[in-house]
């Protein structure tokens, strides 16, 4: 015979003053866990959002990111003739060679520095990345020292307003527009004309090549063809796959989140234990009465466990609510793959919320286990006599 759950829930509510601190404690632990993990989720989503399923990315064999890759002009010249590559209405192949340069720029406070990724891109390259839109100003003119910067980056880097100029390598670049990458990795980039970038930064080689395959089978064929060609020390992979693998930066954040959650939850378990012991202590007579009425030890144990779990769950829900306002808030750090400033958002997903709630229930059960055992073992006569 189980005690009605209503009994436990009412108990939590009646003793609200004593339990409030515990609930808040659990809520804060869950909120910290959710916030840190939502950063990792945001980072993963931003790289997962990037790329077009029809595109194939080509980089130097062995390099882990575009920014550390090099493709010589001789290697590049062989690529447009591959039969698997799609062509536009005029018969021109969809092939774009990009130049990636990392530049040091001042942050918006004009004191600290950031490392920003500049992509020298061709008109075809822009066509191959349809998820990037212009949201202010105009596109750069080829052959001019003009750049279009990410709107989200403009919120973090100095001199990134439309019309501003900034210096790099002794030359001035003018910001003529803002781009928006639809919460993808392109939100962390500065775009300019590829040839202009090569002459400005004295780059003989390209960094990466992006091509569009005619169809899925052609894409697979193209990847095979490039991987097996001994003349080309290159590797090809689907663009989507390339970006979704760029999640190394999320790892330490995840570890930090787990470490914090573990350490803080130990404290929260102690707090829950304290509250539950006090709750058992002040209800000694009540428990005795329940035993006399015929409720079994097992039932009482279970009922206190439920009470602890419910208490913590309330805290968990509160924690979720506390972390929710940060959802979508933009932040940034250095990416371990490209060594450049990466802009991403806090992302609180239903799955993450479910993890946070499960976590809070575990804290509740762990904290109430010992007090519940004590409650179930109280000798009936003594319990009834208690003041």
């Amino acid at each position, binding site marked *: 015979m189980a005690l009605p759950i209503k009994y436990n829930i009412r108990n939590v509510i009646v003793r609200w003053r004593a339990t409030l601190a515990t609930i808040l404690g659990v809520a804060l632990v869950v909120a910290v866990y959710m916030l840190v993990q939502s*950063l990792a989720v945001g980072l993963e989503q931003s790289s997962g959002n990037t790329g077009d399923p029809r595109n194939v990315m080509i980089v130097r064999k062995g390099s882990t990111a575009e920014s550390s890759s090099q493709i010589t002009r001789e290697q590049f010249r062989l690529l447009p003739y591959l039969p698997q590559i799609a062509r536009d209405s005029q018969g021109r192949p969809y092939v774009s060679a990009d130049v990636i340069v990392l530049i040091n720029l001042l942050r918006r406070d004009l004191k600290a520095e950031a490392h920003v990724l500049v992509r020298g891109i061709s008109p075809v390259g822009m066509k191959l990345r349809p998820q990037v839109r212009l949201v202010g100003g105009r596109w750069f003119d080829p052959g001019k020292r003009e750049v279009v910067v990410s709107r989200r980056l403009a919120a973090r880097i100095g001199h990134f307003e439309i019309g501003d100029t900034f210096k790099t*390598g002794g030359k001035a670049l003018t910001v003529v527009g803002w781009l928006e990458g639809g919460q993808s990795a392109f939100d962390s980039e500065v775009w300019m004309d590829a040839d202009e970038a090569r002459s400005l930064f004295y780059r003989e080689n390209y960094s990466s090549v992006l091509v569009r395959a005619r169809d899925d089978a052609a894409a697979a064929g193209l990847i095979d063809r490039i991987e097996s060609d001994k003349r080309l020390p290159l590797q090809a992979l689907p663009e989507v796959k390339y970006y979704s693998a760029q999640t190394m930066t999320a790892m330490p954040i995840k570890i930090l989140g787990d470490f914090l959650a573990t350490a803080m939850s130990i404290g929260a378990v*102690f707090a829950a234990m*304290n509250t539950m012991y006090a709750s058992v202590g002040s209800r000694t007579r009540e428990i005795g009465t329940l035993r006399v009425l015929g409720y079994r030890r097992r039932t009482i144990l279970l009922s206190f466990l439920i009470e602890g779990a419910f208490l913590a769950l309330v805290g968990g829900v509160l924690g979720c609510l506390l972390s929710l306002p940060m959802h979508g808030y933009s932040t940034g750090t250095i990416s371990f793959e490209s060594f450049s400033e990466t802009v991403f958002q806090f992302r609180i997903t239903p799955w993450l919320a479910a993890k946070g709630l499960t976590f809070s229930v575990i804290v509740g059960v762990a904290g109430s286990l010992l007090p519940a055992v004590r409650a179930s073992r109280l000798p009936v006569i003594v319990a009834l006599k208690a003041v």
Partner: protein
Amino acid sequence: MTTLTFITKNALRNKRRALLCILSVAVSLFLLVTLLVALREVTVPPEDIGAALRVVVRNKISFTNPLPARQRAVIERIPGVAAVSPFSWFGGKYKNEEMMTFGQFAMDPKLIRPIFGEAKMPEEQYQAFEADQTACIIGKLTAEKYQLKIGDRLPLTSIIYPCSIELKIAGIYEGTIDDRNALFHHKYLDEAGGSDGWVGMWWVKVRSIEEMPRVTDSINRAFANSSAEVRAETERAFQLSFVSMWGNIKILVHSICSVVVFTLMLVTASTMSMAIRERFRELAVLKALGFRRRELFAFILAESFGLAAVGAVLGIGAAWVFYTQISIAKLTQGIFITFEVTPKIIGQAALVAASLGIVASIAPSIAVARTSVVDGLRTLD
């Protein structure tokens, strides 16, 4: 019974609660110390002894852009410069590993002692390294991690140079702040990597501290308006420029620290009020016996302060013992190197514990002050 024994007895009357309270304070302070130490290590990277006399010269665009090798002769002629070595990050992955676990730098082998004097290695190992162009030296931590001995091969695949190289270990050094890096001949990189004529950075040793500002200035001016403008700065400034790249992560850890402190306050304060509420009647008896409010406050404060102090000693002490005894570099695979619990951090944590003890006694004190003797005597738990 003295006042002290009275307070101690009171604090320990519910041993389980006192223990839980102390433990939660201890765990929270341990966490706080860990976060503060980690934050310090990230924002104030450990400094090498020889760093004060070293200047790092990198491409002004960013350190990922190379510099032409011809700049060396120009820098060497600048008065006050004792030695100049190329210093190129190889970015190699060891064997078949997924990630880079230690740095490898190509440099001039003859200049290791003049520039990096703190690296300690037997004389014959230095000679063996200088004599063989395919040789390298590695730090003690890396050698221990991969169980490498002198004479072993070190296969590396670069993520930036289009080559894989195999180096022969000629020596194992120790004594620098981060004994992990591998150093090898720049000539070997020039021949293997096909980037002849280009280097990653220049590392410069300056004769005296007084000459540092002038030398950095001269180097910066020497290449102004050339095709490869440079930024010369002290090793310290170079290190700190990496710190600013962490961006908002610092703020994040800071806010987490505050949340930890707040949670700690909350939990301890609630335990304290629980303990006081339990003996309202006793306190009323004390009041009736003629103890003044001030004395009752002192009892409560002393008890709460004492619990916090014991928790603090346990938590901070455990953190101090743990982080000084174990090799944190090994445990975190080299993400953290020194992980030093500084007196300042101990002080900060102790301050948090002290204010915790005081804050936690406020709510119960107010409750005691508000209740009249009669009401207090009437309370049934």
